[in-house]
């Protein structure tokens, strides 16, 4: 029996590769599934959301310009780093979702495997989604998928880690950068993921993690003129809110991924990758 007092962790946001507190100075209490206090999480403000978009935009050129091979390596590196901190995430997910250790472990393992799965997609998606177009004339004509830009992601509320990874990885593997709003009542695994990302060779700003009230941050992100796409997974079950956000997103014609029932343990398919890709078609005459 030790008298040692444990060291609490101050959970912080992850923005632009740094770990700031909320600009607002606010926090909110995060409890486990039984209502026991776990930690205070930053209660992000609209300003935090705007800062995160600026960081994501700044990172876009470098990340989208990196080779697919390099992006794949870095996504795999994230899986490596997570594997090393598996126990921490198992315990955080168990607390967050009220799961037994073994069920939480299954979620974390699936999340790690998902990074590996998406890592392998980085240098294949262009071959699957693009290709040569046999036009009726002497032209070299090629369609290539390209990232759409800055993607705002409202992470799913119930699946605090596997769901989170399942919405971030497909957006960044193709070169997009992301501002993700963590599950409102279970943000701690997401905030800890920030620490993993920071040590995974992922350039700062590629993924930015905010915690707080989804409804407070989602509106400004949906209306933000420098955000190119939005994933509404985090407002599944609130049709009114989803409609309001989709309506706001129309102002700059954001690509909208509408909320739908998702089994996060199932094979994710290519849907979420393709949702944040544009197709660029380049023509050039052929001849001698």
């Amino acid at each position, binding site marked *: 029996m030790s008298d040692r007092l444990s060291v609490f962790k101050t959970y912080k946001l992850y923005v632009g590769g740094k770990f700031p507190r909320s600009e607002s100075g606010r926090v909110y209490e995060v409890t486990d599934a039984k209502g026991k206090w776990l930690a205070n999480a930053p209660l992000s403000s609209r300003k935090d959301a705007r800062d995160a978009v600026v960081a994501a935009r700044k990172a876009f050129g470098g990340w989208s310009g990196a080779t697919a091979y390099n992006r794949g390596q870095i996504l795999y590196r994230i899986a490596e780093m997570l594997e090393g901190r598996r126990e921490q995430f198992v315990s955080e997910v168990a607390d967050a979702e009220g799961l037994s250790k073994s069920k939480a472990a299954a979620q974390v393992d699936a999340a790690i495997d998902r990074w590996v799965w998406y890592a392998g997609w980085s240098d294949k998606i262009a071959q699957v989604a693009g*290709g040569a177009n*046999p036009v009726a004339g002497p032209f070299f004509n090629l*369609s290539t998928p390209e990232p759409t830009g800055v993607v705002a992601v409202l992470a799913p509320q119930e699946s605090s880690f596997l769901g989170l990874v399942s919405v971030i990885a497909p957006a960044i593997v193709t070169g997009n950068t992301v501002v993700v709003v963590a599950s409102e009542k279970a943000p701690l695994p997401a905030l800890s993921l920030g620490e993993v990302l920071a040590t995974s060779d992922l350039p700062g700003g590629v993924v930015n993690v905010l915690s707080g009230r989804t409804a407070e941050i989602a509106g400004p992100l949906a209306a933000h003129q420098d955000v190119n796409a939005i994933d509404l997974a985090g407002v599944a079950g609130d049709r009114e809110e989803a*409609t309001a956000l*989709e309506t706001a997103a129309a102002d*700059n*014609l954001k690509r909208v991924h509408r909320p739908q029932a998702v089994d996060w343990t199932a094979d994710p398919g290519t849907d979420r990758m393709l949702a944040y890709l544009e197709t660029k078609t380049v*023509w050039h005459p052929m001849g001698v």
Partner: protein
Amino acid sequence: MAFEYAPAPESRAVVDIAPSYGLFIDGEFADAADGKVFKTVSPANEEVLSEVAQAGAADVERAVKAARKAFEKWSALPGAERAKYLFRIARLIQERSRELAVLESLDNGKPIKESRDSDLPLVAAHFFYYAGWADKLGHAGLGTDPKPLGVAGQVIPWNFPLLMLAWKIAPALACGNTVVLKPAETTPLSALFFADICRQAGLPRGVVNILTGDGSTGAELVAHPDVDKVAFTGSTEVGKAIARTVAGTDKKLTLELGGKAANIVFDDAPLDQAVEGIVNGIFFNQGHVCCAGSRLLVQESVQDELLDALKRRMASLRVGDPLDKNTDIGAINSAEQLARIKALADAGEAEGAERWAPACELPGEGYWFAPTLFTGVTQAHRIAREEIFGPVLSVLTFRTPEEAVAKANNTPYGLSAGIWTEKGSRSLWTAGKLRAGVVWSNTFNKFDPASPFGGYKESGFGREGGRHGLEAYLNV
């Protein structure tokens, strides 16, 4: 001395326009429920060509019902059978292409050489291309058994009336959807002739329904609760309104919207070819093209040489009778559009850009605008930012490739772009940096049904053409 051109008009005897047309619903032509009609005129001489029905809410309701009823059988048909209907349509379009080309030039004002040599061949090609997909959908990389969505509500613009119809209807039918299509208010006739082709092809009733009308008809259609898919080509402003209408519904949406394409000429470009590409890029179809190369970005060191050659070339463009086979630039589509072009061109002068147009005699009646060039344009000028949708070219300059890319991307739009350089690595570097859905390198305004087309950013989302174009009409 140069020889004068004698008039070389295409005969309009091949096309028989009725004095009035109804709506095409459930395989029949019928008047609008409330009896409202409007006139469609030839923009070249303001002659009234015909009177068409103005569809109201009751007509939209009837057309969507007909399409819903037809969907059950049409979607259940084996793909190979649907394909045969589309092949029939493609052949009928080829057979009647002379008639349709003349009709299109009459109603739209575009030169016959463009409707005859560009629009109609592409229209037929589109139906051929998608006909071949109808029985191969499981091989398109969109899942092993992709399903149609249901009733597609489609709203198309006036710049390429029949081509935009083909872009919308061919993939929709190939995938097993049924359609209600609203052609533009100023160019309704070719869609009604297409309805007749559907009858000739023996297409089942209700699979294709055509509702003529104005913006209010389109708004009714996209808002109809029993429409499963909305496809729109037109202005960004209307596109945003449609996106708001569709928000919170299960309707799938694709939008092909405006553009302000940069046509970038580097100092090592083949200048004569570039001049042809610039002219084609902005003066094709009177500049009524969403992907028109309306911003010329020329490297400073070749500016004078290029502009001299461009002005010489522009002076040789022939503006006039759309049915004349020697006409390069036809009529502006409507009085309203002409007013918009004039207002923006005036704004260009007021903001300090220098306006130039070749000496050019315009016909006394109808809607006309001479091919126009603005130099000394800055990025802040309205003529460099707003889509003019007319034969007006704004010229900007740059010094480095980085500057060209920055200027090219400095717009909310992202539909198309052009690059002129003989250096392959520079061309590919530039193409990679441009945020645009279509990049033409050492060519411009090329289209093909096998080639995906569509925009980045506020030029809309979704792709038309190619394998990618199927996605918009399947549950994937």
